[in-house]
């Protein structure tokens, strides 16, 4: 298996903290939704439903899954898109998570998992679920640059487009966990349109306190 190049300096601490956080999760709860910090399988899969609205399953496709965890998306694809040909690359900061994923999916053809923060290949589509939510103690400015860099990288490694999700801001006066990152959809929609020159669609009426951004090449 290929491993990704050394981490960029500015984000080395951030990547290390986030990787450690998810390593602790998977070591505690195993390859389960709790192991990737989601409350249950249905909510985990409802996010996949939204992200996968980007993809045209009419033809064989290649897919990059950034922050893939133990590869839960593959189980969902096997249920919902059983006979489709999908060449899959999963990338995650946590080596423990990737070890779980490789163990689970070793029999699946056209499947690769690597430890890292970005894809080493261009795929038809790139997806990322929940990777911008848990910022831990990172400064807001650094986290914003991390999101920008990640979106830019996903755009560069996606032939047709990419999809990500974000937690939405809480209602006025409500106080949430400070370790979570929340942002209005217009911020990242505007970024994708102006900085990346892409077309961005916001999905937000699917019952959760979050939104999904589908970003297509213009």
């Amino acid at each position, binding site marked *: 298996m290929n491993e990704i190049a050394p981490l960029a300096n500015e984000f080395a601490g951030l990547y290390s903290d986030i990787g450690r956080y998810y390593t602790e999760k998977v070591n505690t709860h195993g390859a389960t*939704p*709790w192991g990737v910090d989601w*409350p*249950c*399988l*249905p*909510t985990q*899969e*409802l996010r996949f*439903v939204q992200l996968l609205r980007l993809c045209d399953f009419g033809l064989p496709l290649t897919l990059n899954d950034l922050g893939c965890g133990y590869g839960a998306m593959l189980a969902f694809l096997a249920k919902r898109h059983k006979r489709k040909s999908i060449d899959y690359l999963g990338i995650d900061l946590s080596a423990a998570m990737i070890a779980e994923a490789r163990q689970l999916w070793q029999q699946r053809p056209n499947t690769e998992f690597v430890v890292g923060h970005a894809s080493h290949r261009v795929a038809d589509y790139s997806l990322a679920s929940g990777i911008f939510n848990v910022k831990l103690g990172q400064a807001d400015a650094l986290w914003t640059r991390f999101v920008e860099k990640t979106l830019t990288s996903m755009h560069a490694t996606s032939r047709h487009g990419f999809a990500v999700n974000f937690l*939405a*801001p*809480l*209602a006025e006066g*409500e106080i949430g966990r400070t370790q979570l990152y929340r942002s209005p959809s217009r911020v990242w929609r505007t970024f994708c349109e102006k900085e990346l020159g892409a077309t961005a669609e916001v999905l*937000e*009426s*699917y*019952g*959760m*306190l*979050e*939104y999904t951004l589908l970003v297509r090449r213009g």
Partner: protein
Amino acid sequence: MGFFMKEHDIYIGTMLEGLNLRFAPSQGKDSHFGGINEMVVLQKEFKIFKKGRSFKTSCAVLNLGPRNNEVKTLWQNLLGNLYRHGSNKKGLDGDAAIVSAVMKNLASEKPLPIFFTSHDMRGAKENSQVKIIDKSQPIHYLEQDYLTISIPMQPISAVKKPAVKK
């Protein structure tokens, strides 16, 4: 100590609260939801609650329950026993009545949040039923209509029969 939960009956309130949070009124803005609205979408997408599937199983799918394995097993035993109870819904046992009420509510035009609670099953015969109230305001400090589901419970001493005197 409770019959099913034994020394872990102190967690029953926490588990009912877990259910009440997942089926709570939406707190978000118009465009962002959570609580009952999330459950509506999950039900529509995945048909989590369905006829022939126990309430216990649907709760397990939603990870609704304690993380401690021993407590989880006891709680699931409690939920898994609901089919032995009657209900105030004609022709339905306790488990089927809950599943039916949840399904109907989630599919309705204006789904209500669901309030889960318990009642003392001792005394009158109908106290042993699962009780479902289609629309009421069970929480005095919230001006909010709910579907209320009340599960019958009793302390373990109520089940133990006294020794027969010779």
